[in-house]
């Protein structure tokens, strides 16, 4: 009975977290690809290693291009399906020769009677005889090691190993992502932004406004509840792109608010991106209005479960409306408030689409939050190198923070006390 649920749980809940965790400890990016890598030494690899102390002469040896025409090369050429006449020419005229540059070797090849006309075919043929380790793609570590052994016969074993490690183009396991996050100054800035964004949206809109509206509507005639509930749902059911465009119309120069401000003599500019303060206000409001409906609906439902007699009793006891709200209603709303707070904290921590489509973290990076930064790092940036590993590491931090926060909330609201069963049924 339980197994289908467990399978679903494993596939859709644990697997993403497990994979994110795994990726977070790799340097996976567009450059490495997501599959198995090959072994390639590029001039860049060598330059990097030289900074780390690779001996000059070894680097020069690896850089050197060498072409040797020998038995092995000829066999390889036949195996590669090269024109037999051409191979015979090479075998007859060039066997035993060695060249130091590709240009010289290609010229020699081109002079052969049976040489193919296409320069590409000649280049391909030349490569078969190349003995250089540089810029060549080796499928396995051993192949590259062999090539290196030829290129730098006297190179130390450690140096060779270092070269081999550095030449791998696939993703490798590393804790580098976390070191980078811990050391770069940008992290603190984004963290503070996130903290401010989540707590302000949560306090002002998702819980504050929702609770205020729910209690206000609770005291209004019944019919109004349906109308208002639906109205507050509109931001939630509007497609996000459309909602973002509406906010642009609302806040951009020439939009509703700036024009209105101009009429009354207030500063008028692009509020969404024009200043840090207005960007924050825009961002928090537009996210808040989406989230407020959730709390409103939940709180309204919870309010209706408080027995009417309790409210009557408090009125008969002499409580004013405010005292009734503060002393009878709010203490009994602890569980829904906890739920909304927890749930919305998670939603807000993970939300970036609204921000991406509006302020996009600007002006500058002043409203960039963690999730947006993770999204940009891993999935969308202009440099084109998507750093999946680093992005996963950032996402993993979000998961951990979210988990820790839920535990704190449960503690704070004394959850265990809320769920204990009454000792006497009535």
């Amino acid at each position, binding site marked *: 009975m339980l197994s289908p649920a467990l399978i679903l749980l494993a596939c859709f809940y644990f697997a993403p977290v497990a994979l994110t965790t795994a990726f977070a400890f790799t340097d996976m990016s567009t450059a490495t690809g997501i599959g198995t890598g090959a072994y390639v030494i590029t001039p860049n690899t060598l330059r990097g290693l030289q900074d780390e102390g690779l001996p000059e002469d070894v680097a020069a040896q690896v850089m050197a291009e060498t072409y040797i025409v020998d038995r092995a090369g000829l066999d390889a050429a036949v195996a590669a399906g090269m024109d037999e006449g051409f191979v015979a020419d090479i075998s007859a005229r060039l066997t035993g020769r060695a060249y130091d540059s590709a240009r010289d070797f290609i010229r020699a090849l081109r002079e052969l009677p049976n040489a193919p006309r296409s320069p590409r075919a000649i280049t391909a043929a030349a490569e078969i005889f190349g003995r250089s380790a540089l810029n060549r793609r080796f499928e396995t570590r051993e192949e590259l090691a062999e090539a290196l052994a030829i290129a730098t016969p006297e190179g130390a074993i450690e140096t060779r190993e270092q070269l081999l490690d550095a030449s791998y183009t696939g993703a490798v396991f590393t804790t580098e992502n976390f070191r980078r996050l811990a050391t770069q100054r940008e992290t603190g800035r984004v963290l503070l932004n996130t903290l401010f964004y989540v707590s302000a949206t949560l306090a002002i809109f998702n819980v504050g406004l929702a609770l205020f509206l729910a209690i206000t509507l609770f005291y209004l005639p019944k019919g109004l509840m349906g109308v208002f509930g639906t109205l507050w749902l509109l931001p939630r059911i509007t497609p996000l792109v459309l909602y973002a465009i509406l906010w642009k119309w609302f806040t951009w120069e020439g939009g509703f608010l700036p024009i209105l401000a101009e009429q009354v003599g207030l500063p008028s500019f692009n509020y969404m991106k024009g200043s840090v303060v207005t960007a924050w206000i825009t961002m928090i409001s537009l996210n808040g209005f989406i989230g407020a409906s959730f709390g409103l609906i939940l709180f309204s439902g919870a309010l209706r479960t408080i027995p009417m007699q309790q409210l009557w009793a408090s009125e008969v006891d*002499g409580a004013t409306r405010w005292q009734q709200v503060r002393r009878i209603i709010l203490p009994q709303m602890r569980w829904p408030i906890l739920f909304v707070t927890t749930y919305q904290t998670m939603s807000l921590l993970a939300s970036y689409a609204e921000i991406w489509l509006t302020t996009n973290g600007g002006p500058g990076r002043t409203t960039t939050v963690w999730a947006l930064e993770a999204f940009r790092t891993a999935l969308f940036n202009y440099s084109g190198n998507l750093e999946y590993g680093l992005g996963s590491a950032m996402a993993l931090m979000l998961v951990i923070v979210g988990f820790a926060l839920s535990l704190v909330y449960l503690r704070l609201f004394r959850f265990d006390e809320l769920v204990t069963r009454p000792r006497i049924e009535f």
Partner: protein
Amino acid sequence: MRLHLDNFTKRFDGNPVIEGMNFVVEDGEMLALLGPSGCGKSTTLFAIAGIYRADGGRILFGDRDVTNLPSQRRNVGVVFQNYALYPHMSVEENIGFPLTVGRIRRDKAEVARAVREIAELIHIEELLARKPAQLSGGQQQRVALARALVRRPGILLLDEPLANLDARLRLEMRSEIRRIQLETGITAILVTHDQVEAMSMCDRVAIMERGRILQIGPPTELYRAPVNRFVAGFLGNPPIVFLEGRTAGQGSFAMDQGLHLPLPPRLRGLPADRPISLGIRPEHFGTGGTAQATGRVTFVEPQGRETLFDIETAPGVILRSVQPAREDVGVGDIVTWPIDVDNLLAFDAEGTRL
């Protein structure tokens, strides 16, 4: 405090639930509003508490017209059927709540003293630290009563306070509530559908049906001299039996099924051939009297101290009898038992008592 309902009217969505109701509860008196569910008794109670607004007439506390005052300013105590204790507060906080809200600021010591005093009166001193969920039904009931009384209200309103208790506790709380009401001398109104509660706890009982008070008076008066068939049928357990028939001259009563009975002396003057119904309470059949009826026992229900009998005196005509416990009569026996004619009740075709 004297309570006066003057032409009180209440409508829900335009439908009149109570039209022009009048009654007075004297200072220190306890009145029961008794009637079947839906008769408007709770509505009346909530209107007195200020929870419902009156749509017409006046509600007077003493000389003060409170008709348009919100419930906060009426100073009434209410015990609700489900007690309506605040689940997140301790018993002490629950009882003290009325003293800590409103416009008057009281210091903590004063509140604590008042709570302790009332808790002693209600016998719940040892429960003060508990939460409502940790109390039994009877204890919750007492806490609700303490909370209603702590502010020394002018009027105590009880809405079916015993309905949620088991039989034993109900008996206990019945006398407890009456004791506390008498000790505090508070004017009280009890809403109930249980005639035993109403009759045993209250000085006077008002019987309600469909938003009207049919009869108001001391319990025994209502029982002995009901104004109509409804009141006669509502009071009494096991209930009264009505026989439909006609006057047959010379002060007698006859049924089509063949049963003949003499009318009580005060009704002997009724003209013949008038449709009336005769009410015979079970305690007036089989225990003594001048007339007699013969029939077959169809049902015996021993109740310990008493035994109930159903006697078929004519086809389809069943009289009920309650007698001190006896085992000499069984189902199927033919018995001839006396009827106490003087105590028979007679009603005309409209149901009014003659």
